[in-house]
C-alpha cells in the first residue's frame, strides 16, 4: 500500500477549496444551531442560493462577478426571510422539517426544465467565474512544498477561501462576545425567558438565520467557482448532513470548532478512503469493489454523526459543560 500517497492526499485536503466550503457552511450553521439553537436542516440550500444567485447574475444579467457575489448574498438573506417568517415562531422541530423541505424545493426549482433557460436545468451553469480567475495576482508557476504544491490558480482560490474563513471567524467571534450574541445564547437556552425580558426573539432569530445563511452562501460560491460549474445535484441533503457532521465534530458553539472540524473530517475521510482502496487493491477486502469503498465513506459519515451526538456532543473543542442541545 502506498502510504506516502495516502498521507499526501489526506494532507492535501487540509486546505482544499472543498474543505473551505464546508468550513464556511459549518461556521454559518454554528451561528444557527450552536449559538441560537435553530435546527436548520437546509444549510445546503443557503449555499446553493448564494451560488446560483451569483452565477445567474453574471450569466443572465451580465453583471460583474463582484456584483454577482453581493446579489448571491442578498438572495440568501431573502431566502432566510422567506423561510424564517412561517417557521421561526414555531417549535424547533418544525423548523427542521421546513428547512429540509425548502432546500429540496429549491433544488427542484433549479432542476425543472421550465426555468432551464436561466438555471441551466439539471446540467447547471458554468463560465461565471472568469473574473475571479482573471484577478489572480500570482504569476504562473507552482508554489509550496511536499503535499502542499499548488499551481497559481489553485493557490489563488485557496488564499481567497481561507481569507474568507478568517474574516468570517473573526466576524462571528466579534458578534458572539457582544450583548447581541448573549441574547442569541439566551434564546438557545429558553426563548420564553428571553422574551419575558423584553427581547424581540423573532427578530434575533431571523438575524441569526440571515447571518449564518450568508456564511453558507459564501461557502457555496467558493464551491462553484472552484468547480467552474453549479449543478442542482450537488446540494442534496447529504451536503447538509456533512455540514452537520463537520460542525458537531469540531464543537457547535465554538469559533475554531467548524474550522478544525472541517479539516479533521476531510483528512479522516481521505485516509479511510485511501486505506480501504489500498486494501481492495491488494485483495484484502474481496467482498468490496472500489465504488463500494466510496459508498462506505458515506456510511461512515452517518455513523460518525450518530456516535458524535451520543458520546461527544460538545465536539473536539466544545466545553463539556456547555453542551449544545436543547432537550
Amino acid at each position: 500500500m502506498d502510504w506516502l500517497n495516502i498521507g499526501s492526499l489526506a494532507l492535501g485536503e487540509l486546505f482544499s477549496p472543498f474543505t473551505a466550503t464546508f468550513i464556511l457552511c459549518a461556521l454559518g450553521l454554528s451561528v444557527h444551531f450552536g449559538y441560537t439553537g435553530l435546527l436548520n436542516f437546509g444549510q445546503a440550500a443557503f449555499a446553493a442560493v448564494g451560488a446560483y444567485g451569483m452565477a445567474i447574475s453574471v450569466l443572465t444579467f451580465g453583471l460583474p462577478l463582484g456584483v454577482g457575489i453581493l446579489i448571491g448574498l442578498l438572495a440568501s438573506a431573502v431566502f432566510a426571510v422567506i423561510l424564517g417568517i412561517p417557521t421561526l415562531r414555531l417549535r424547533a422541530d418544525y423548523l427542521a422539517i421546513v428547512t429540509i423541505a425548502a432546500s429540496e424545493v429549491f433544488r427542484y426549482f433549479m432542476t425543472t426544465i421550465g426555468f432551464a433557460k436561466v438555471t441551466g436545468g439539471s446540467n447547471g451553469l458554468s463560465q461565471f467565474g472568469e473574473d475571479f480567475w482573471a484577478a489572480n495576482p500570482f504569476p504562473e508557476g507552482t508554489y509550496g512544498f511536499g503535499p502542499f504544491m499548488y499551481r497559481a490558480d489553485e493557490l489563488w482560490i485557496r488564499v481567497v477561501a481561507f481569507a474568507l474563513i478568517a474574516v468570517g471567524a473573526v466576524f462571528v467571534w466579534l458578534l458572539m462576545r457582544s450583548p447581541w450574541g448573549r441574547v442569541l445564547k439566551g434564546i438557545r437556552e429558553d426563548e420564553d425567558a428571553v422574551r419575558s425580558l423584553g427581547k424581540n426573539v423573532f427578530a434575533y432569530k431571523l438575524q441569526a438565520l440571515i447571518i449564518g445563511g450568508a456564511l453558507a452562501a459564501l461557502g457555496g460560491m467558493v464551491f462553484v467557482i472552484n468547480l467552474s460549474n453549479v449543478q442542482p445535484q450537488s446540494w442534496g441533503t447529504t451536503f447538509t448532513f456533512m455540514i452537520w457532521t463537520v460542525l458537531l465534530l469540531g464543537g457547535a458553539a465554538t469559533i475554531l470548532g467548524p474550522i478544525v472540524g472541517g479539516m479533521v473530517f476531510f483528512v479522516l475521510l481521505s485516509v479511510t478512503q485511501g486505506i480501504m482502496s489500498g486494501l481492495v487493491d491488494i485483495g484484502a477486502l474481496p467482498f468490496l469493489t472500489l465504488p463500494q469503498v466510496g459508498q462506505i465513506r458515506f456510511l461512515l459519515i452517518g455513523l460518525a454523526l450518530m456516535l458524535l451526538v451520543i458520546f461527544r456532543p460538545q465536539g473536539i473543542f466544545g466545553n463539556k459543560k456547555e453542551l449544545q442541545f436543547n432537550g
Partner: protein
Amino acid sequence: MANEISIGPAAPGCKKHDPILVADNVMRQFGGLTAVNVEHVEIPRGQITALIGPNGAGKTTFFNLLTGFDKPNTGSWTFEGKNLAGVPSYKVARLGMIRTFQLTKALSLLTVIENMRLGAQKQPGENFLRALIRPLWAKNEAAITVKADDLLKRFKLDAKREDYAAGLSGGQRKLLEMARALMSEPKLVMLDEPMAGVNPALTQSLLDHIKDLKKNGTTVLFVEHDMHMVRHISDWVIVMAEGKVVAEGPPAQVMKDPAVIDAYLGAHADTDLGTVAINVPGKAGN
C-alpha cells in the same frame, strides 16, 4: 367591609383607588374547556397582590394572557392606561411588566452574571450592527455589570457569579430569575409560584425580597399555593376557581370567605388550607 385599597367593600371585580392593571372580559378556551373567564379585575398599584386558587383554576393561563404569552379568545386589559390586548410579550416586558415562570427559566448554559446582564434593557450592543464595535456598548455594559453585581449581592448570589446557571440549586435559580427580572427596574413584577420547590432555608429570604420590592415602589402580583406566605406578605388576595374570580379582599377577610373554602375544598377535599398544597407541574393550566 371597608379597606384602604378598594373603593367600597371588597368583592370580586371591585374597583381600586389606584389600579396599575385592569382586565375586562378576558376569556380563553382550550377546545371546549374554558380555562379563564375573568369579567373584571384590577390590580392595586404599589401593593403586593396574591392570586390564589386550586390547581387548574387558570391562574397561570391568566398570567400568560396578561403578559402576551398566550392569546385570549376575547377580552381587553390595560397596564397604566395602555391597552395591552394583542401586544407581543417582549413589548409588554419593555413597558415595565416583567414576569417569572412557574418552572424556573434560568438560562442554564449562561453564567449567572450573563443571566443578569441579559435582564437589562437599553443595551445598544444588543443591536446587531452596534454589536460589532465594542466602544459603542462597553460603557453601558460596565454600568449594567455594576447593577447586576449589586443585585447579586442583595440576593446572595455573588459567590456564584461566574458559575453556569445550570449548577445552581432550585431555590437559587428562583432567586436568580427574580433578580434578573429586577434588572430592568419593572413597575410591575409578576411572580408565578416563587416558592415552589424552594427549600425552607431560602423561603424567608425570598419573602424579604418581595417585601423589599414593595418598599422600593414596585407593584407585585404573584401566584401561590402556600397560604402562610399569602397571609404574611400580601396586602390583597384574589381567588380564582374554574377560570373565574370568585373572591377578593385583604388576606384575613378572604381566608374566612366561604366561597374560598368552597373553591379549595371542592377541588381538594384533602388539602388543609394551612399547608403547602402539592404542586403538580404542568397541571395548573399552563
